[in-house]
C-alpha cells in the first residue's frame, strides 16, 4: 500500500509533536482537524469508520501501534453502487445463489496488510446479512457468503466502500476458475511422482550395493524390479501425461515443440528398463525415470510461480489514465474513466473517443467507428440514440449519458490490436519463432547421433546419454526472453507515464533514425490571448458566438480562446465543422461564424504582424471580418537540452503549421543540422514522413497532438501523442505522454535501446547454457536426473536475469520501477 509521505511511519519525532496524526489512517491532520475524546481525525470519513468499528466491537483494529486504516474516498461514493440494484445484475456477478445463501467475490485493491484481513473477515459484525467472509490476500479478493433476503449486493458494496475497501466490480471480465484446477492437477501429479520416486529409490538400494549376486538375492532383484515397475505405472500414466499429450498434439500437426524430446526420452527410458528387468535380470532405470518425472514437474511448478510473479499483465495502474469531462452541477470536471458510473453525463468533443457505451442526450453525433470495426464512414446519431465505446466524434460537442462502466482493458485491447502498423519483418518475434523451430530438430539429431555413437562403445551408457541430451536442451529461455523483457519494460514505462500501445513499440523506438516535432500544442503552448480589431472590440453577443463555436473544438488554440472569453455566454450551435490546419465554421441561428487561419477566414495571406512567437487566429461573423486573436505561446522549458540529448543519435526536425515568426529563436533551440519547416499543412507533414520512409528508408518518430496530427502519427513508425493536463486518447498513436513528461524523452529512448540489448544478452546466455549442457550430456557426463534439474533452472535464471536487468537499466536512467517509487 502506498505509504504516503504524510503517513505516521514516515514522520520524525518533531513532526508528530507539531501536528496531530489521524487515529485511523495515520496521516497528518493538515487541512481539517476533528477532535473526539483523546483522539484526532483528519476527516469525516476516518471518524465514521472509527466510530463504526468501535460500535461493533471491532476496536481491536486499532490495537496496532501504527494506524493502517484507509481513508475512505470523499463524498459521492454511495451513489455509485445504485446500479447493483438493477434486476439481473445479481445473477451476473454472484458465484452462487439459492435464495437463502449467496456467494459473491469482489476484487478489493485496497487490501494491503494483516489488519485488512482481520477486518474484512469480521464483516459479519458490520452487516447481519453476512454469514462469513474469506479473504485471499495474494489475489486481493474477498468472498462473501451472505443471505440475499437479509442484505443485497448494493449494501455490501456500499459498506465495503464506506470502510475504505471499495470493491472493483466488472461483470464483463469472465470468472477465472481454470488456473485453480490446472495448479491442483500439477500438485497431484507431483505428489504421485514423488511417492513413486521415493519408494522406488529405496527398492533400488540393494541393486546399487550389489546385493543380488547370490541365488536368494537374484530372486529378490526380480521382485524389486517388478514392484518398481508397478510403482512406475501411475507415473507414466498420470504424472507424465501432460508431456505425452502435448507432444502428441503437436506431432499430429507435423510440428515440433520442446515436449517432444522430453516425451521421447521418458518413453525410451521406460522400455529400456522393462527390457532389462524382464530379460536381463538387471535393476533397470525406474529410479531415474521416476526421479526424472518428479524433477521435471517440480521445475514446471517453479517456472509457473516465477512467471506469474514476473508476469507483465498490465495492472490497472500501468494503463494510461484516460480522462473525460463529466458534467457536475452545470460545470465540467475532469475525471478518470475508472470513476465513471452509469448515470453520469459526459461531454465528448470533436475528435475525442467515447470511453464507454452511452446514450446521446444533446448534440448531433457523427461517430467514426473505424477504431472498433474498421468502417471509416461516420454514422450520424441523434439525441436518444446509443453510442458505443471506441467511437470517435467528428462534429460538435456531444452530451452523453453513460450506461455502462468503462472498461479500460477493452479500450486498451482495441488499441493493441489496431492493425494499421506495417509489419516489420526483422522483428524479434520472427527471430524467436525461427530459432525455436530449428532448435528441437537440432536437438533430436544430436540425440540420435550421440545414441548411435555410444551404442557401439558402451550400451549401458547409451540410454542415459540419449535421455540426458533430450532433457537438458531447452529453448524456453530463447522463446521467453523477448516477451518478458519487453513486458517488464512496458510496465516500467507505464509507471513513468509513457504509455505504449504494445511491446513492439519499444523495439521501434530503439531503432529510430529521425524524430519530427509538431510545434503548436506540443512544444509551444498558448499562454496569453489578446484580441485586436481594426473596428471595435467584441460585443457580448459576438464573444458568446465565438466562444460557443470554439468550445466545440479541442485544438489548443481553441481552448486558449475559450479560456480567454470565459465570461461570455454559451449559445447553442446548430452546425459545426472543423477542418484540420484551416479552421472552424459553425452556424448559430443562421449566423455563420468562421474562426481560423487568414486564408480560411479572409481568403488572403496575413501580414507579418509581430516578431514574437505567437499564433494568430482570425475571426469573421456573417462573412464580415471582425479581427484576430493573438495568442502568445510559451516554449517548453528545457527543450534545448532535450533536443541536444536526442540529437546525439537521431536527426531532429520541426514541422509547424504556423508562419515563420521566430526563426532565429527556434534555430537556436534546435540543434545544428535539424530541419525547420513552417507553414506545413497536414498533407505536407504526411508527405515529408512518407518521403523519409520510402526513399531514404528511415525509421521515423512523430511527436504531436493526438487529434490534429492524427495522420502524421499514424504514418510514422512511432507516433507519440502529447496531451496537456487531461489525457486524451488518440487511436492513431503508438504512445501517449503528457507534455510535462516530455523532459524524460531522452531517458525513455535510452531505456528502450538498453532493453533490446538485454534481450540479446539473454539470448546468448540461454544459448550458452544449452551448449555447455549438451556438451556434458553428449560426452556421457550428465545423468538424466541432473539434466532434469538443469532444464528448468536455465529458463528461470535467464528469465529472471532479463527482468532484473531491465529494472536495473530503468534505475540507471532515472526511471521509477514501481508506482510508489520516489525518485
Amino acid at each position, binding site marked *: 500500500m502506498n505509504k504516503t509521505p504524510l503517513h505516521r511511519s514516515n514522520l520524525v519525532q518533531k513532526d508528530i509533536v507539531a501536528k496531530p496524526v489521524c487515529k485511523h489512517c495515520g496521516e497528518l491532520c493538515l487541512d481539517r482537524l476533528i477532535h473526539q475524546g483523546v483522539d484526532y481525525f483528519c476527516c469525516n470519513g476516518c471518524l465514521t469508520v472509527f466510530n463504526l468499528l468501535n460500535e461493533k466491537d471491532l*476496536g*481491536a483494529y486499532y*490495537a496496532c501501534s501504527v494506524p493502517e486504516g484507509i481513508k475512505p474516498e470523499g463524498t459521492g461514493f454511495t451513489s455509485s453502487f445504485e446500479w447493483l440494484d438493477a434486476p439481473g445484475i445479481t445473477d451476473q456477478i454472484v458465484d452462487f445463489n439459492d435464495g437463502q445463501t449467496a456467494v459473491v467475490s469482489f476484487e478489493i485493491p485496497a487490501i494491503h496488510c*494483516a489488519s485488512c*484481513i*482481520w477486518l474484512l*473477515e469480521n464483516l459479519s459484525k458490520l452487516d447481519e446479512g453476512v454469514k462469513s467472509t474469506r*479473504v*485471499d*490476500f*495474494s*489475489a486481493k479478493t474477498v468472498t462473501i457468503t451472505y443471505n440475499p433476503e437479509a442484505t443485497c449486493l448494493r449494501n455490501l458494496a456500499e459498506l465495503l466502500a464506506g470502510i475504505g475497501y471499495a470493491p472493483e466490480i466488472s461483470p464483463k471480465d469472465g470468472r477465472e476458475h481454470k488456473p*485453480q484446477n490446472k*495448479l*491442483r492437477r500439477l*500438485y*497431484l501429479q507431483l*505428489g*504421485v511422482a514423488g*511417492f513413486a520416486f*521415493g*519408494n522406488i529409490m529405496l*527398492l533400488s538400494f540393494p541393486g546399487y550395493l550389489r546385493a543380488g549376486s547370490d541365488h*536368494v538375492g537374484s530372486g*529378490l532383484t526380480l*521382485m524389486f524390479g517388478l*514392484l518398481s515397475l508397478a510403482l512406475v505405472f501411475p507415473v507414466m500414466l498420470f504424472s507424465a501425461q501432460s508431456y505425452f499429450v502435448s507432444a502428441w498434439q503437436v506431432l499430429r500437426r507435423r510440428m515440433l515443440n520442446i515436449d517432444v524430446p522430453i516425451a521421447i526420452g521418458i518413453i525410451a527410458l521406460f522400455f529400456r528398463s522393462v527390457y532389462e528387468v524382464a530379460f536381463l535380470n538387471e535393476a533397470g532405470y525406474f529410479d531415474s525415470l521416476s526421479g526424472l518425472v518428479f524433477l521435471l514437474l517440480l521445475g514446471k511448478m517453479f517456472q509457473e510461480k516465477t512467471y506469474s510473479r514476473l508476469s507483465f499483465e498490465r495492472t490497472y495502474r500501468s494503463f494510461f489514465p484516460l480522462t473525460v469531462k463529466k458534467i457536475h452541477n452545470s460545470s465540467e470536471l475532469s475525471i478518470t474513466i475508472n470513476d465513471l458510473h452509469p448515470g453520469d453525463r459526459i461531454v465528448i468533443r470533436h475528435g475525442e473517443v467515447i470511453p464507454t457505451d452511452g446514450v446521446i442526450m444533446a448534440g448531433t453525433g457523427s461517430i467514426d467507428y473505424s477504431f472498433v470495426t474498421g468502417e471509416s464512414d461516420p454514422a450520424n446519431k441523434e439525441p436518444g440514440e446509443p453510442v458505443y465505446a471506441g467511437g470517435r466524434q467528428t462534429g460538435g460537442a456531444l452530451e452523453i449519458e453513460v450506461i455502462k462502466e468503462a472498461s479500460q482493458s477493452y479500450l486498451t485491447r482495441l488499441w493493441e490490436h489496431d492493425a494499421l502498423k506495417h509489419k516489420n519483418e526483422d522483428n524479434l518475434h520472427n527471430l524467436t519463432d525461427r530459432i525455436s523451430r530449428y532448435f528441437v530438430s537440432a536437438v533430436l539429431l544430436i540425440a540420435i547421433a550421440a545414441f548411435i555413437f555410444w551404442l557401439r562403445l558402451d550400451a549401458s551408457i547409451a540410454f542415459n546419454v540419449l535421455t540426458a541430451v533430450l532433457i537438458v536442451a531447452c529453448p524456453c529461455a530463447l522463446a521467453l526472453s523477448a516477451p518478458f523483457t519487453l513486458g517488464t519494460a512496458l510496465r516500467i514505462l507505464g509507471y513513468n507515464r509513457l504509455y505504449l500501445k504494445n511491446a513492439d513499440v519499444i523495439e521501434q523506438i530503439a531503432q529510430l533514425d529521425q524524430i519530427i516535432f509538431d510545434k503548436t500544442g506540443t512544444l509551444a503552448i498558448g499562454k496569453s490571448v489578446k484580441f485586436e480589431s481594426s473596428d471595435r472590440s467584441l460585443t457580448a453577443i459576438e464573444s458568446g458566438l465565438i466562444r460557443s463555436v470554439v468550445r466545440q473544438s479541442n485544438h489548443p488554440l481553441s481552448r486558449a480562446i475559450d479560456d480567454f472569453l470565459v465570461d461570455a455566454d454559451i449559445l447553442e450551435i446548430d452546425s459545426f465543422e472543423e477542418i484540420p490546419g484551416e479552421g472552424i465554421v459553425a452556424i448559430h441561428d443562421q449566423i455563420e461564424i468562421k474562426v481560423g487561419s487568414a486564408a480560411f477566414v479572409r481568403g488572403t495571406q496575413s501580414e507579418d504582424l509581430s516578431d514574437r512567437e505567437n499564433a494568430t487566429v482570425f475571426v469573421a461573423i456573417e462573412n464580415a471580418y471582425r479581427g484576430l486573436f493573438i495568442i502568445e505561446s510559451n516554449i517548453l522549458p528545457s527543450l534545448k537540452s532535450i533536443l541536444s540529448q536526442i540529437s546525439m543519435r537521431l536527426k531532429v526536425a520541426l514541422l509547424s503549421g504556423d508562419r515563420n515568426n521566430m526563426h532565429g529563436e527556434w534555430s537556436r533551440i534546435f540543434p545544428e543540422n535539424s530541419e525547420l519547416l513552417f507553414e506545413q499543412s497536414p498533407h505536407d507533414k504526411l508527405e515529408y514522413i512518407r518521403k523519409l520512409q520510402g526513399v531514404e528508408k528511415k525509421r521515423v518518430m512523430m511527436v504531436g497532438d493526438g487529434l490534429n496530427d492524427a495522420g502524421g502519427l499514424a504514418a510514422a513508425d512511432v507516433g507519440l501523442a502529447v496531451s496537456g493536463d487531461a489525457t486524451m486518447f488518440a487511436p492513431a498513436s503508438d504512445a501517449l505522454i503528457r507534455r510535462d513528461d516530455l523532459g524524460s524523452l531522452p531517458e525513455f529512448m535510452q531505456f528502450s535501446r538498453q532493453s533490446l540489448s538485454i534481450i540479446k544478452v539473454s539470448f546468448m546466455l540461454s544459448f550458452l547454457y544449452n551448449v555447455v549442457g549438451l556438451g556434458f550430456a553428449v560426452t556421457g557426463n550428465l545423468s538424466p536426473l541432473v539434466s532434469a534439474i538443469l532444464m528448468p533452472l536455465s529458463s528461470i535464471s535467464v528469465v529472471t536475469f532479463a527482468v532484473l536487468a531491465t529494472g536495473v537499466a530503468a534505475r540507471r536512467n532515472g526511471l521509477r520501477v514501481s508506482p510508489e517509487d520516489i525518485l
Partner: protein
Amino acid sequence: MSVIVVTILFSLLVALGFLLAFVWAVKSGQYDDKVTPSYRVLNDEKLTSKK
C-alpha cells in the same frame, strides 16, 4: 529372509495411505491459497489479547 516381501508390501501400503491423504488435501482446496492462512493465525491472537 523372505519375510522382507511382507514388510515391504506393508510399508508400501502405509506410504499409499499418506499419498491418499495428500490427494484429499489438494482436492479439498487446502493448497489453493497458501498466503492468507499465515496471517489469519496471527489475527486471532490479536482479538483475544484485547479481550
